[in-house]
């Protein structure tokens, strides 16, 4: 079962809802959507870095979950299962984008990073709201510059609060590999921030 940063709904209730949903109870499935859509959306958004895409992908993840609900067995928690579906939905979408030769997320975001870096040095950046927005922009840009496997690992750890073992299970790799990916992800984020937001990041 995944550990969560936020308080999690009771697993027993989840099981009951899943059983009812498997019997065709749409209301039970709607309750599961209500419980988890924000967390799924946050994870997907952190991975793809675009609100509209994240919205579409989160919807797609829930649709896939609904269609394959009959295959779900209560060996893992519902959220672990839903989480895997969400990650795989994102991966498929990213592969599809790459095949279509869409503009790389990384390249586009790097350009925006320079613009934001300039904006961040403006005096009005000291305003709290602007600062929060800029912090978010900084983080999202540094995430989008990461290779996919590093991005997924660091999002699972920092956004969803998963343990190393849980990340390994979802990504299908050893705890040692998870450690290495997290270390390299954080190092690359640090380098990105040092080069694009030197004033903010300097100790």
């Amino acid at each position, binding site marked *: 079962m995944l550990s969560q940063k936020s308080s999690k709904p009771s697993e027993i209730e989840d099981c009951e809802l899943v059983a009812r949903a498997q019997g065709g109870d749409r209301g039970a499935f709607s309750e599961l959507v209500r419980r988890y*859509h*924000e967390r799924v*959306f946050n994870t997907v958004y952190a991975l793809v870095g675009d609100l509209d895409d994240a919205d579409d992908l989160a919807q797609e993840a*829930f649709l896939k979950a609904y269609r394959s609900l009959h295959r779900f067995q209560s060996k893992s928690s519902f959220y672990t299962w839903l989480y895997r579906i969400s990650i795989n939905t994102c991966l498929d979408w990213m592969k599809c984008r790459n095949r279509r030769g869409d503009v790389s997320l990384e390249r586009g975001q790097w350009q925006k990073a320079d613009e934001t870096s300039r904006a961040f040095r403006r005096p009005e950046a000291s305003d709290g709201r602007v600062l929060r927005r800029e912090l*978010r922009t900084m983080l999202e840009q540094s995430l989008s510059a990461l290779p996919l496997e590093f991005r997924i690992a660091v999002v699972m750890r920092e956004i969803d609060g998963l343990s190393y073992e849980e990340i390994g299970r979802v990504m299908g790799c050893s705890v040692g590999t998870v450690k290495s990916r*997290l270390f390299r992800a954080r*190092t690359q*984020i*640090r380098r990105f*921030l040092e080069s694009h937001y030197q004033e903010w990041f300097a100790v």
Partner: protein
Amino acid sequence: MTDRSCDAHTEGVNPMSCRCNSRALSAYLDGALSARKAEALARHLRVCSRCREELAALTRVRDLFEAWEPAPPRAHFAHRLNLRLDREAGIALPIWLQWAARRLVPLAVAAATVVAVTYLLNRAVLGPEPVTVDAYLNRSLDQDMQEMATVSEADLSKDRVLDLVLAGGGR
């Protein structure tokens, strides 16, 4: 960092190498090191300023995530999802029926195939079904009635009818 010497090395302490520390620092930050390794690293951090700086930088990266406030999901997420599920339900069967169809339809097809093949094999081996006595008598009666129907009214004398009846009864 990995290509720089560590203060601890020059101070005669017996530290882990800086390369190991760099990787371990990330896990140390997450509390994912064993107690023994965490203790050794804590000792090393007391004497190695470069590793302390490295840890401070990684901590700032982590703090950035802590401060991250994700954008709110688009409005009416659940409602829009329900509409899509409704649209799907319009062309799709309920889940339990999908399950039943997936498992029962192949069984029904297999059973029907077995019955059909058995029937055809029986026909091939045994030939046409033998005519039962009842079927034979019924067929004879039908034929008699057809013959009577074809007799013109002029021919329907008592003798003629009697002949026909007797001819039928004699079969």
